[in-house]
């Protein structure tokens, strides 16, 4: 314990180390602040849309309730869906800045509506967000390298090594205390701003704890690596270079190569083909006998089979039926597209098992519900809601029930739930595994070299 206090006092006396830890503290504080501001902005946007949406529906109800034609109501009324940021989104914004978190749909073909993009500045999205995940994954290792690369070599180069080890009684204890104090400094510089952010955002306790675990595991990896490298009796310069090269490889090069490999191994062309196929299928209905469309529709929706047969005249139920049939004809492509997005994400997790930076990044985003699988989950919720919309309008359309002003208020309302986030157990295990691997290799190597 005494050794720890001694080291803490020593560290506080080192201006450069204190400056580095303060700098990391400042960066994570700014990142947490920026994340909270962004989340507040997204929440304000969602809140702002509700009254606008209500006014839009009321304006449609004004004219559509005169004729009471359910077709007009179903055709013209859009229904809002939204994906509120989770209680941890402030720490990892993730895909929320490239995909919409508010989307309106109507009871027409869903496949033409589900993939709508958001108005975003692509040049702002390009470099990525400045959030807590970024500070942890990219910047924190640099600070680890800064504080640990010359742990021994710095003392040796200053000519103090012998005297220091002699004065400490147990040299092993001295280095342990020094590592522990510096690690604690870095951990606190990351954890304190995060905990304040979590308190402001009301983050669930298990998520807060999980993030701290990720921070701890990720720092442990870099500290272990630094200590292993620093144990070799080489100069501080060579240590710093080796570590910075490792950092560049693990956080820049390997993920970039992994991205190229994954995207070319799992090409996703279904998206654009899906759009064209659904459109053509929908519009073909105008050129084939109506009975052909209705037969196809009744095969999947037998409950409407006994409704009044179509005549020569236009009927909305036929119109909505061919939209549904159009969706169904593109269903295989839609499934393949969805599976492809998830498969890409799954492979990136596999890469995370051996790349700590990727593991930390993916684990934080999984917890925050801001990764591609959260995006797909939102699309699934929209799909279910759209199904409910169809279920709501079809009885009016197929049974020719008038659709009055009151009926507008009866339409299903989207029930938003922020992504619950998932426990990134596998990724954490990968982080711990990689740390253990580095430690084992380091121990084996130092025994071989007789250090």
């Amino acid at each position, binding site marked *: 314990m005494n050794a720890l206090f001694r080291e803490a006092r020593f560290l506080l006396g080192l201006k450069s180390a204190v400056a580095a830890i303060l700098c990391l503290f400042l960066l994570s504080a700014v990142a947490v602040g920026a994340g909270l501001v*962004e989340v507040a*902005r997204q929440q304000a946007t969602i809140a702002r*849309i509700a009254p*606008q949406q209500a006014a*839009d529906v009321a304006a449609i109800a004004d*004219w*559509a309730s005169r004729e009471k034609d359910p077709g007009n109501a179903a055709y013209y009324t*859009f229904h809002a869906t939204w994906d509120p940021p989770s209680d941890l989104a402030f720490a990892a914004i*993730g*895909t929320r800045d490239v995909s*919409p978190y*508010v989307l*309106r749909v109507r009871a027409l073909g869903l496949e033409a509506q589900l993939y*709508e*993009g*958001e*108005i*975003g*500045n*692509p*040049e*702002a*999205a*390009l*470099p*990525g*967000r*400045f959030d807590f995940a970024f500070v942890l994954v990219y*910047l924190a290792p640099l600070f680890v390298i800064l504080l640990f690369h010359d742990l021994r070599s710095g003392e040796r180069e200053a000519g103090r090594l012998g005297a220091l080890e002699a004065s400490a009684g147990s040299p092993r204890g001295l280095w342990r205390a020094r590592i522990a104090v510096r690690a604690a400094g870095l951990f606190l510089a990351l954890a304190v701003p995060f905990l304040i952010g979590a308190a402001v955002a009301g983050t669930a306790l298990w998520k807060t704890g999980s993030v701290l675990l990720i921070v701890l595991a990720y720092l442990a990896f870099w500290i272990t690596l630094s200590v292993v490298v620093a144990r070799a009796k080489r*100069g501080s*310069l060579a240590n*710093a270079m080796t570590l*910075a*090269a490792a950092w*560049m490889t693990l*956080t*820049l090069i390997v*993920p*970039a190569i992994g*991205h*190229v490999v*994954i*995207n*070319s191994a799992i090409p996703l062309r279904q*998206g654009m*083909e899906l759009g*064209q196929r659904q*459109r053509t299928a929908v*519009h073909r209905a*105008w*050129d084939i006998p109506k009975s052909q469309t209705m037969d196809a529709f009744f095969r999947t929706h037998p409950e409407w089979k006994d409704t009044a047969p179509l005549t*020569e005249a236009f009927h909305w139920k036929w119109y909505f039926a061919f939209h549904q049939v159009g969706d169904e004809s593109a269903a295989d492509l839609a499934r393949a597209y969805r599976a*492809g997005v998830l498969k*890409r*994400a799954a492979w990136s997790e596999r*890469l995370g098992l051996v790349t700590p*930076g990727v593991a930390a990044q*993916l684990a934080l985003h999984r917890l925050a519900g801001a*990764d*591609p699988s959260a995006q797909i989950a939102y699309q699934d919720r929209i799909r279910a809601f759209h199904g409910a919309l169809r279920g709501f309008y079809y009885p009016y359309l197929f049974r020719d029930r008038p659709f009055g002003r009151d009926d507008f208020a009866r339409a299903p309302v989207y029930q938003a739930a922020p992504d619950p986030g998932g426990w990134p157990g596998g990724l954490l295990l990968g982080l711990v595994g990689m740390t253990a691997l580095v430690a084992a290799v380091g121990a084996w190597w130092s025994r071989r070299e007789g250090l």
Partner: protein
Amino acid sequence: MSVMISVARNALRHLLRSRIALTGVVLVALLTLAAAVTSRAYQADQAGLRDRLQHAADQDFAAQPNRHPHRVVHFGHFAIRPASGLAAMDPGVEAFTGNMIFLEGHRQNSANFGDARQSSLLVRFGQLSPALVLQVIAPLLLVFIGAGMVAGERERGTLRQSLLAGVSGGTLLGGKALALGFAGLIISAPAFGLLLWVGVNGGARASAVALSALGYVAYLAFWTLLIVAVSAMVQRSRTALIALVGAWAFSVVLVPRLAPEVAAGLAPLPTRVETDIAVQRDLRAMGDSHNPNDPYFAAFKQKTLKQYGVSRVEDLPVNYRGLLAIEGEKLTSSLFDRYADQAFGAMAAQGRVMDALAVVSPTIAIRRLSMTLAETDLSAYRRFLEQAEAYRYDLVQRLNRLQATAVTAEDDAAKSKSAAAESRSRISADHWRSMPHFAPDRPSAGEVTGRALPSLIVLLLWLAAGALLAARAGRRLNRSAA
């Protein structure tokens, strides 16, 4: 000059002897090569796919049977963004923009199926491209092999020897910079090879290739000078390394990330949903086509009747529904344009804020220069969207005019009641086949160069600042020797 070259030769020999430095140079050169090859292959694949899809869309459109023109308005068309030649060098915002727009009447859809939305989170680590290697990784490698170039000699005591032997500080630093710059050229050679290749093979203009190469040379030269200067100004290699890695992390990693946060706060963007609602609201305020007594459309009717010199709609020589469709599309399109201009105006304001940060980070300047020349920046994307919108408007109005002139008012009115009228309201499929194809044109070479120029000037200023710093460091070396 010969002294400088011999200093450079010695420094290079030293680099070759250092295993770490040599491995680093070879590995990053290989990485650049891999980036050039994969990026080129990916872009060629994308270009093929997009060509095919656009062709398929054109065919689908032309293959429509006889139809009522308004059905064709809703059948719509697809506009697919053609790939740019230099995208292999710098994909820019390509992954963050949609590539396909569904064009139809009454609505303005978004461009969908961008790569970032359908990729794993790895895309946020940066895409492997020659631009990423040259902008981000090459400077860091130069820092590694260059930080100790002068400071290391000082630590070994050979620096003082050289200075006392009469080599001036400026010559010494010049020689070191030449050697480091040579290493920089080796690691970036595959990227320059790619530039040349896309230039020769017609994918890119010679002016863009030349300016892009000039920009990257200036950028890497700036880092070379900065590294040599810092290495000369500090006492120990380790201090130089830490200071330079810090400078690198600040200007290459930190500032580009902070820039959007600053910009987003200063010029917020509306969401698509809000814009959609606002367009509908404004439309209702202008004229409600669902209201038979709407003043705007009543006035339009009076104007039309007067224009044709008749007193009743039934007496018009054209189909009044077609005229209404033309007028309605005109109203909605003017609103689409207005809101799109607002959104792009906000984005341009954000862009100006982000570009201004080039004052503290040369990476911002090279990124802007590179994307602009590769035509993979926001303004190239905006150009595509605007051309797609112009094409959509033209196509829809051609079809609306056909509804006004080629479909009789009686058939149009009776088509949803009677199959015979419906059949008569269909016009010949020849009309679809004679519609123009979507053929977006590229900005002129002069326009691209003009937009690239400011960032090139900023880069050259950075280079001049680097040279000034190196010159000062050289003079300090002279003083320290004396």
